[in-house]
């Protein structure tokens, strides 16, 4: 058995070849093909201009935002094993995540990561603006980026309610009352009376933007469950789709923009 193994080159075994598809590259073309033929490696460009790796130029803020997003995904999934989004359990579950759960720091990592991601996304946007990287042909990717920024803020907003403490409840009360002041679609917003059929007003406390956001008239258990689903499933799925388009467009629009 051992003798047989010694004699065989592992790089030429059936298993190796079935996993990696291409031979160990010997030239530039081979190295390119190796990157292009691997699902993980192909996410990276096969080559990049020298200026694109300068931290002084990019601050690496886009990459850091994505890295923090991955950390938030992993820690968020772990938190879901302990946290129950009901009014009777949410608050104590969050305390238990610090007091009784192994290591007691997973929730803090998630919280710090959430703050950090908001900061890195804003700094990324600032860098892109200051280096003029929003200009054609990258103007569409700037628009995608604005959607990603909005989704980041929505993830931050929905996560804010989940600890179910006084700060959470009143912050979401204030935030959802802003939704009630939406023009046309909010019950207290300007022009809400215009949205009507005959005498029947269509924008009421039981049909306006705030009601659709919370699923009830005030912040209660229904809003907690709804924000939990938005935070853990709906918004992450949507943001991953837009991130895919965002990263793909960086490549297709000519890679990281050059110095002016």
């Amino acid at each position: 058995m051992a003798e047989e193994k010694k004699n065989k080159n592992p790089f030429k075994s059936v298993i190796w070849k079935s996993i990696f598809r291409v031979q160990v590259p010997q030239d530039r073309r081979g190295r390119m093909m190796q990157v292009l033929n691997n699902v993980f490696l192909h996410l990276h460009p096969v080559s990049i201009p020298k200026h694109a790796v300068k931290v002084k130029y990019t601050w690496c803020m886009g990459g850091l935002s994505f890295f923090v997003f991955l950390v938030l995904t992993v820690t968020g999934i772990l938190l879901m094993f302990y946290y129950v989004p009901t009014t009777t359990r949410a608050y104590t579950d969050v305390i238990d995540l610090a007091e009784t759960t192994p290591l007691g720091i997973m929730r803090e990592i998630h919280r710090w990561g959430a703050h950090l991601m908001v900061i890195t996304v804003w700094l990324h946007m600032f860098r892109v603006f200051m280096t003029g990287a929003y200009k054609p042909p990258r103007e569409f990717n700037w628009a995608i980026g604005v959607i990603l920024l909005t989704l980041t803020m929505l993830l931050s907003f929905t996560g804010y309610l989940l600890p179910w403490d006084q700060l959470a409840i009143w912050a979401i009360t204030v935030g959802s009352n802003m939704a009630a002041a939406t023009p046309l679609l909010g019950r207290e917003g300007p022009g809400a009376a215009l949205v009507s059929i005959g005498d029947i007003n269509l924008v009421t406390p039981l049909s306006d933007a705030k009601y659709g956001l919370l699923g009830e008239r005030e912040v209660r258990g229904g809003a907690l469950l709804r924000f939990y689903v938005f935070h853990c499933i709906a918004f992450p799925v949507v943001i991953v789709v837009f991130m895919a388009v965002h990263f793909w467009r960086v490549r297709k629009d000519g890679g990281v923009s050059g110095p002016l």
Partner: protein
Amino acid sequence: MVDNTSNTDAPLSRRGFLSWMTVAWVFFAAAMGGFLTMCGRFLFPNVLFEPPSSFKAGFPDQYSPGAVSVDWKGKHRVWIVRTDDRIYAILARCTHLGCTPNWLPNESKFKCPCHGSGFRMSGINFEGPAPRPLERVRIGLAEDGQLLIDKSVTFRQEKGDWENPDSYLMT
């Protein structure tokens, strides 16, 4: 090469194909539109599991004139205020962004902890960002002589609602 335009023996002509495609796309768009409408409507529940909006708040005699009662604030979010000649109920919901203010007896005002709006005992706003006075709710007497508060009916000062006899009780 087959010349499609003159191929009359084909089971489906170009014109027929296009018209069928039009029908298919119209149905597909209608189905998607209908389904998305359903998804949107699904997020607006028909039944709410909220506590009833009206409650009995004891007898008028238990409230002393010139005082604000905070007894029902925790459970029903309402203050009962009795002045020299009348009793009214104020909804403890700040008119700025919906937080619950506190009654500060020493300063004789309602103060909101979120952004600092202040209201007089009457509910009139006088400081902070609140744009209008606190709302009052319907107050009446139940058959057994207790106060009956109904939060589903609100009265706004800026609309002249506080003159409505349902918004206060003479003592």
